């Protein structure tokens, strides 16, 4: 279990964002919150893992992954979503995200994903 990693949390929904940040910190990691993919990209931060929602104004989570790919950035991405469309979920998986989690998800599931992504 990696301690003290930097996790970027990107979601336009503030209560979810804050809740995940709390969870991440309770795991001993550090968290940075962004309400949009653009904000994150502009911040030039280099986290150890990104947790992102799909549906956001502007760049979607999937598009962010594609952007990172095109930049050659291999930081692991965990995609969370409240959407349910199977096509979208498939697309998310195909983007190369480490995990795709459908909200609401069990916290244990998330922790496992995070641990796996940080390894």
């Amino acid at each position, binding site marked *: 279990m990696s301690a003290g990693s930097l996790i970027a949390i990107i979601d336009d929904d503030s*209560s*979810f964002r804050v*809740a995940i940040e*709390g969870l991440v910190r309770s*795991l001993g990691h550090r968290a940075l919150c962004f309400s949009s993919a653009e904000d994150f990209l502009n911040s030039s931060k280099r986290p150890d893992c990104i947790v992102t929602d799909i549906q956001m104004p502007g760049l979607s989570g999937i598009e962010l992954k594609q952007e990172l790919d095109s930049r050659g950035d291999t930081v692991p991405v965990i995609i969370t979503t*409240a*959407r349910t469309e199977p096509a979208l979920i498939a697309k998310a998986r195909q983007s190369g995200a480490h995990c795709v989690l459908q909200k*609401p*998800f069990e916290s244990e599931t998330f922790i496992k994903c995070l641990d796996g992504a940080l390894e």
Partner: protein
Amino acid sequence: MHGVSPPPDFPDSELLDLVIDSVVVTDANGVVALWNSGSQAIYGWTRDEALGRETSKLFGQDSTGPVTPQGNDWHGEQWRQTSGGKRRLIELQRRNVQLPDGRQGCIETGRDITAAREAEDELRKSEHRYRNLFQAMAASFWELDFFPVGKMLYQLRKAGEIEDYADYFARHPEFVREMMRQTRVVDVNDQTVKLFGRGNKDELLTSVEPFWPEAASDVYAASVVASVTGKLNYSAETRLRRIDGSEFDALFTACFPPDTLNKGTLLVGVIDITERNRAFAELGRSENRYRNLFHQMPIALWQVDSSRLLALLAELRTKGVRNLSAYMDDHPEFLATAMSSTRVAEVNRSAIDLFGGKEASDLAGSSTRYWKSNPATFRRLLEARWRGDSYFEEETRMNAIDGRVLDGLFTIAFPPALNEIGISINAFVDMSEQKRSLAALRESETRFQRIQAEFAHASRVSMLGELAASIAHEVNQPLAAISASSAAGLRWLLREEPDIGEVKALMHRIANDTRRAADIIGRVRDMALPAEPRYSTVVIGEAVQDAVHFLQHEIRRQGVNVSISIPEGLPVVMADRIQLQQVFVNLAMNAVQAMASTDRPRLEIAGTCKPENIVVSVSDNGPGIAEANLPKLFDSFFSTRQGGMGMGLAIVRNIVESIGGSIVARNRGEGGALFIIRLPVHSSGQTG
């Protein structure tokens, strides 16, 4: 005798006492020289009293009367006083003579014609009166000489021809015509000239034959029979003829007063009854028209005999009752008495049918049974009569004789002319049908409204179905947050040194997220609420905000720019809050969906206040509405979307119109659709 020369000696003067008339001889000075017993009989003075007196002193100075001189002979009339002071009219003949002693004198004979003159005067007056009457009568009068006819009949009797005049006349019409020819017109009055003639009275002084048409001969014959059988008069309606040949209806009356019949005179009166007959015919027709009208009228009509009731009321008045209302309060039994005194005399078919009878007699009689349900109406009717009104009407209930209760309008007319003969006419316009129809209509309305509400509900639910994904998505966010927070909270608590501060913060966040989830669920539940509209004062701004909030996920997903400009303090409207939200959700949703392919989709909702109305506009910059679709836009089952039910806008319009508002749609000049909703301001003047 005072110094007058002794009377001359007349030879044979005793002879003069045998003369009935008065003989008086006077000298040139009017002194009486001879006075017979006839004079005493007339004037009263004896010979001894009269001899030597001046006649002017005896008979009075003011002897009046015309005296006509004829040479030496005078004759005339004079009013003279008698010894008893009476005045007598004397017919006189006088001659100047020479007295035996050679002096000039005058001899007169006199006759008392007072009585005769009075009789004459009376007769003349009577004649005059009769003449006046004869002339003046508005009836046509004839004086006929029947004498020759009498002779004809006498001949007939002598010839043994007749037992029965009537029979003979019937069998011998030519005899009757001859009788007519023998009946002479002696005199006619002005009215006869007017009625029968042409301005010339003499024309009519002929026989009566021209005035009797053939067909009327039997009436003439009957009048002759009446006269010869000792009747005093005879009258009959018949047809008579004018001098110009035209005929008319007449009332013919002949009088045969016994004393004139001997002389053969009879009096006939004729009255033209053409007018009267015409009036009767008119009356008959009128009667018929009334009867027809009464019986054919399609509303229930009754002819009521109120004579007994009127007598009752009159009795009260003579007893000194002034206020009928107060009287009836003190004597509650009077109402029942009044009802039973009011009798149904005649009814028409409509009344019989309506009131459950088979024939008119079923309904006749006392009117008590018709007022069982609502005697108060009858009471007010009595009060109207008492006041002298000629008309009364009231919506009320009456009772049919088969037990049914009838709702309707009761009217009664008692105009003075009818009232005087104790008749009034009732009409009853049955509104039971109407009332039932109204009730049915109202029920229909209610059912319709319920169905409308059901539809609105169904629409909301179907919309919820459409939004299900969106809603699920929305609810999932707080749920996920709660899940993460509670996991984190546990971890914080399980540390060697539990970070209570963190846990506290987490708990707060969990509470907030729970509330958020509950809100969303609540809104969904609201939208799914069943149909009964519940009206309250609604603030438009809040309804719009709620609607946009409800759709926030869709809005965010599509990236729609939403602008809401609804000023604070707009007046409230009276509406069902959920339904009003539904309106804005529907319009906003349509706009968002329409702008699916629009680059920078923008939804604008603006509100302004006009007098009595709030106007809200919902506009987008999508492709707008096809011109062809504009007129049908709000029709039920009209949809431009594949698989769309087409209920949304129809229901929106229903909701808006059910609170007295309106909605129109058009395309904006700069592209996109514009919906304008007008909602009436709630009149209590509250603002929100």
